[in-house]
């Protein structure tokens, strides 16, 4: 008998758009209409499919149909038309901007075609709450291979040869980390998964923890076996409620099936994992701070002249890797290091997951081979800028990363290239910015974030970032001077040099890169007292182009301050006195008639 499966995406993005109602409604209707009569139909809730922009997504296999923006009220039509009669509901298909037409399968869109999934291989294809789904797709086979056919030394060699580098940001070779820990003769040893994804604009780890928790567990057990550890921890942000729930459930099921706990798969090897909930401190994503937090202390980093592989959690040898790194391990073991090594660039092997967000058409989660160009990522996979506005920059690497301008868009994405241009890979946030994004405001935004998240241990980081914030705020308010820019750069170098951990060392990046690539915007704020993007309220005035205005009144309708007046047949006007500079009018105008007033203000 043929099986048919309906997959309903229940990642956080789709859940916010009520995908759970869609799931329940489909389930109810399938039972009611007895669709099971000749084809067995199963409805599954899955993790994030990536294309959150078009959610909730409903996939039907093996028919290879994907519906987007599905509402609970569409369920009946899907059941009657597609499941019973085998017809396609046209209006629910995804519109692929690149081809300018609707496509039946999501796999036909540029968004999915350019991707290669390793870490995300199962997400969207399995029900994360059911370990059998994972096993059906080859889950825990890598563990079996390791436990019964490989000695620890072989496992580590394989990871070393694969060239896998840590996906958490630093890019330290994973195999080397394991080797160092393996060679130390001090027990107990610990294995930690860093799931404290605090970077604003990044949700790779959340999606993996939610959508495929077992792959993380399997990766950790494989490492534990090779370094002879018996105890592991998964540190997950408290904000990630669904990830916590799914991981808890996966750990329980893995224990029941004998993949975790005592005598794993009757091999005689013991290993168990505990979940630790994070407390909402960004700095705890730093490995030594995270270990402090697990121990029940305030999460302050320590100097790293003694590595964690030697003295980590409770002073014992510890291997800590990021969620995405763990998710790569089982695939490398199964397919071999040569296979993994063949993907990517010379010093960055494999793929990388990015959360492509901001002012881009196809926002969502993507996994691409290392070496893909930024242009391909933003314009092909991302589909370009919302409203076809002008691209300005893409910000990578979270608060410690940098802003990359148009001129560098043809560079390949890998660890070293991004570092060379002043940004970094980070954990994989890619935030696309357009002409309506103010780069001075972006720099201020990150510095503000970091000033709140600095733990306060190092003076340079605690005080230096605060002073930088003051200067940037002044510039945004039109009170900046040109000398400020030199002072700012000076401060940047001091903070960089005199801070202990990664947070402080990389904190100046957003300022340095915007100063380097977007200095004209700083000058516009300082000399002309004008914010070219129309973001900084003190330095912004909007105006309506009388020639372009069709007096449709949409801007007035969207104005929260009722600052726009007009009547039919005559161009509308903005009352500058009551304008709150929210930009709704610019975004809502379909004729490009509203814009930021040009020329110096004073």
């Amino acid at each position, binding site marked *: 008998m043929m099986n048919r499966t309906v997959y309903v995406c229940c990642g956080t993005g789709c859940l916010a758009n009520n995908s759970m109602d869609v799931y329940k409604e489909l389930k109810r209707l399938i039972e009611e209409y007895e669709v099971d009569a000749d084809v067995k139909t199963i409805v599954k809730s899955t993790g994030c499919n990536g294309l959150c922009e078009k959610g909730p997504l409903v996939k039907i296999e093996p028919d290879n149909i994907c519906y987007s923006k599905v509402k609970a009220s569409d369920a009946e039509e899907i059941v009657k038309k597609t499941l019973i009669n085998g017809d396609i509901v046209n209006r629910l298909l995804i519109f692929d901007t690149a081809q300018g037409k609707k496509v039946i399968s999501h796999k036909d869109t540029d968004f999915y075609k350019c991707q290669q999934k390793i870490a995300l291989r199962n997400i969207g294809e399995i029900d994360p709450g059911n370990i059998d789904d994972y096993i059906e797709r080859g889950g825990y086979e890598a563990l079996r291979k390791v436990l019964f056919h490989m000695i620890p030394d072989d496992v580590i060699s394989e990871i070393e040869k694969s060239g896998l580098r840590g996906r958490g940001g630093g890019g330290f070779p994973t195999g080397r980390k394991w080797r160092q820990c393996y060679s130390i003769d001090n027990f107990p040893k610990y294995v930690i998964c860093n799931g404290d994804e605090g*970077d604003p604009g990044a*949700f790779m780890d959340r999606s993996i923890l939610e959508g495929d928790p077992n792959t993380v567990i399997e990766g950790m057990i494989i490492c534990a076996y090779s370094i002879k550890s018996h105890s592991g921890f998964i540190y997950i942000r408290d904000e990630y409620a669904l990830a916590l729930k799914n991981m808890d459930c996966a750990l329980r099921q893995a224990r029941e099936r004998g993949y975790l706990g005592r005598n794993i798969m009757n091999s005689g090897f013991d290993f168990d994992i505990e979940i630790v909930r994070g407390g909402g401190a960004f700095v705890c994503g730093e490995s030594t701070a995270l270990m402090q937090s697990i121990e029940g*202390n305030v999460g302050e980093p320590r100097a790293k002249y003694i590595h964690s592989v030697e003295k980590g959690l409770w002073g014992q040898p510890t291997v800590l890797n990021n969620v995405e790194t763990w998710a790569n391990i089982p695939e490398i073991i199964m397919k071999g290091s040569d296979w993994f090594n063949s993907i990517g660039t010379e010093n960055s092997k494999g793929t990388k997951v990015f959360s492509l*967000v901001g002012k881009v058409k196809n926002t969502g989660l993507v996994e691409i081979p290392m070496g893909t160009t930024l242009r391909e990522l933003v314009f092909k996979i991302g589909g370009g800028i919302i409203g076809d506005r002008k691209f300005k920059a893409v910000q990578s690497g979270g608060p410690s990363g940098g802003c990359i301008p148009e001129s560098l868009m043809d560079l390949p994405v890998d660890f070293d290239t991004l570092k060379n241009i002043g940004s970094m890979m980070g954990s994989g946030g890619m935030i696309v910015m357009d002409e309506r994004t103010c780069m001075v405001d972006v720099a201020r935004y990150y510095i503000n974030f970091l000033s709140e998240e600095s733990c306060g241990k190092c003076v340079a980081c605690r005080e230096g970032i605060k002073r930088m914030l003051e200067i940037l705020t002044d510039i945004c308010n039109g009170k900046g001077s040109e000398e400020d820019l030199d002072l700012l750069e000076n401060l940047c170098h001091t903070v960089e040099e005199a801070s202990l951990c990664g947070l402080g060392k990389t904190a100046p990046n957003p300022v340095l890169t915007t100063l380097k690539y977007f200095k004209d915007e700083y000058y516009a704020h300082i000399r002309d007292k004008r914010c070219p993007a129309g973001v900084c309220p003190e330095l912004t005035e909007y105006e309506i182009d009388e020639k372009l205005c069709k007096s449709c009144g949409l801007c007035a309708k969207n104005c929260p301050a009722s600052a726009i007046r007009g009547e039919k047949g005559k161009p509308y006007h903005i009352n500058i006195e009551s304008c709150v500079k*929210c930009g*709704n009018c610019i975004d809502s105008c379909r004729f490009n008639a509203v814009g930021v007033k040009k020329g110096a203000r004073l």
Partner: protein
Amino acid sequence: MFEKYPKEQRYTLAMLQDLQKEYGYIPREKLLELSQYLDIPLSKLYSIATFYKALSLTPKGKNTIKVCDGTACHIRSSKSLLDEIENTLGIKPGETTKDGKFSLEIVNCLGSCAIAPVMVINDKYYGKMTSSKVREILKEYGGADDE
């Protein structure tokens, strides 16, 4: 409620989080009790309770509104949501309404960047928010009066 954890320092954060969930904040008496239970000085617990953002020493409103100000939300003008909430409820981030109905918080990235800007009330996510949607949703929670 402490009994389910062994008397070990490493469970401090988990216990504090449980208290936060139970009471909506961490009451002083409970912090004292915890200090005795774990035999950890109150000052140390205080430093932990003030370090982590998930913990609060002051009571929260019945409904907690979280506005995400992650980068993706920020550049899709999350600030206009905050302005709208301030207009409607008269509270700034970190404050609670006088009637104890609402607290407003800014959070750094909820990992829902694809549907930015995002607002969360209690545990419900609202994506692709606009100021006019904010007003309507607040009404559902009995927040915005008709003018």
